């Protein structure tokens, strides 16, 4: 086993981690003061002015979001080393609709998932006897209840908003899978997929279980990989957030995405779907929207549309599903997001 090789590097990394944690706490604690000093003293911008507020938001939010993201990704990746897609698949195989959909939605939150593995995962589930509707619950929950988004919402807005996000996302994934299962749409899978499902099951490959140092290594790698990949999206999100924060008047936001207009939720979804960002990039926009008086339901709908309904994933899935099934999938999820938006605009 590779222990001889991974052990020293993991111990070295362990030392770094002990240094990194206090450093993280200090940076996070002084961030607000430093950002105000930079914007109002060093650059001499006037507080309460449009430009001053926008620039202060930029200086405050960039380190804050990056610091939070680093911590959240580390924890999430570490937890994910315990979740193996093969075991999830076995747990879901031959499940009845209902319980199966509920379990699939829950597993969807924690299973590591990237849209490029959507196809093998989808077929692998179906082959192992996971019903189509249950597979869809998983496929809806996995991107929509993004584990990094959940951690970021918790860190930035508290547990209530994080719980509302997870709860409504689970409800959408559960119901969407249940409906698609009832519609019996198996014949709308592409021909080669139906053939692959009929073929004899081949011997499965076995996978080694990682050791604890290896898990820590994986978590550090996850941070390097994800933070290294998403920072341009975060900067773009913060720029949009800073603009909203500094220049968009509250009355305008309230009239556009406020709770008293029937069109605010569909509008939020329409803006959100073509915006391809990732969970971390959309957080600063959510922060600025809520700060400017956008209703929670509209904001939630916007966020779910950005994260949960992405064009690239739909294109990848079109390799395995015929247009009718894709269309059903997108419409069921969109309707779910709209309902969530209206519900929270109505009760909060």
């Amino acid at each position: 086993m590779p222990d001889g090789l991974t052990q020293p590097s993991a111990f070295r990394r362990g030392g770094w981690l002990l240094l990194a944690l206090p450093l993280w706490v200090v940076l996070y604690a002084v961030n607000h003061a430093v950002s105000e000093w930079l914007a109002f003293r060093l650059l001499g911008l006037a507080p309460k002015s449009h430009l001053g507020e926008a620039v202060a938001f930029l200086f405050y939010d960039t380190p804050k979001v990056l610091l939070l993201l680093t911590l959240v990704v580390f924890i999430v990746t570490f937890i994910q080393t315990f979740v193996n897609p093969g075991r999830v698949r076995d747990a879901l195989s031959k499940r009845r609709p209902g319980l199966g959909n509920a379990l699939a939605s829950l597993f969807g939150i924690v299973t590591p998932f990237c849209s490029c593995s959507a196809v093998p995962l989808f077929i692998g589930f179906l082959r192992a006897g996971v019903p189509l509707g249950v597979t869809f619950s998983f496929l809806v929950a996995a991107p929509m209840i993004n584990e990094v988004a959940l951690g970021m919402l918790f860190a930035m807005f508290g547990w209530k908003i994080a719980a509302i996000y997870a709860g409504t996302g689970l409800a959408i994934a559960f119901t969407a899978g249940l409906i698609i299962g009832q519609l019996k749409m198996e014949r709308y899978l592409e021909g080669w997929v139906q053939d692959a499902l009929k073929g004899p099951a081949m011997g499965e490959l076995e996978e080694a279980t990682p050791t604890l140092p290896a898990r820590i290594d994986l978590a550090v790698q996850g941070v390097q990989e994800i933070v290294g990949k998403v920072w341009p999206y975060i900067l773009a999100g913060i720029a949009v957030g800073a603009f909203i924060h500094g220049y968009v008047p509250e009355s305008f936001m309230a009239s556009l995405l406020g709770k008293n207009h029937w069109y605010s939720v569909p509008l939020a979804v329409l803006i959100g779907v073509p915006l391809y960002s990732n969970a971390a990039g959309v957080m600063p926009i959510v922060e600025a929207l809520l700060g400017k008086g956008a209703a929670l339901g509209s904001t939630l709908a916007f966020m779910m549309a950005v994260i949960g309904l992405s064009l690239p994933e739909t294109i990848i899935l079109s390799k395995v599903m015929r247009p009718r099934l894709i269309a059903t999938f997108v419409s069921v999820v969109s309707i779910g997001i709209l309902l969530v938006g209206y519900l929270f605009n109505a009760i909060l």
Partner: protein
Amino acid sequence: MLIEVFGPGCLKCQTMEKHAKEAAAQSGGAHEVVKVSDYAAMVARGVLSTPALAIEGQLKFQGRVASTDEILALIKV
């Protein structure tokens, strides 16, 4: 040894293939690196998450990019 890299061709999968080739070259032994990008073939082998890597038919990594050193450690005799 037979080293198989499974992936549809995304950036991560290309990195994994590169690492596998580097490891094969560094180990000095006789190794064959094969890229499997056909979905049906992946599914038949039980790959659920890409990129994945198998050595002599045994799945070693799935859903992440393994480093050259990690692969090297597994193919060293």
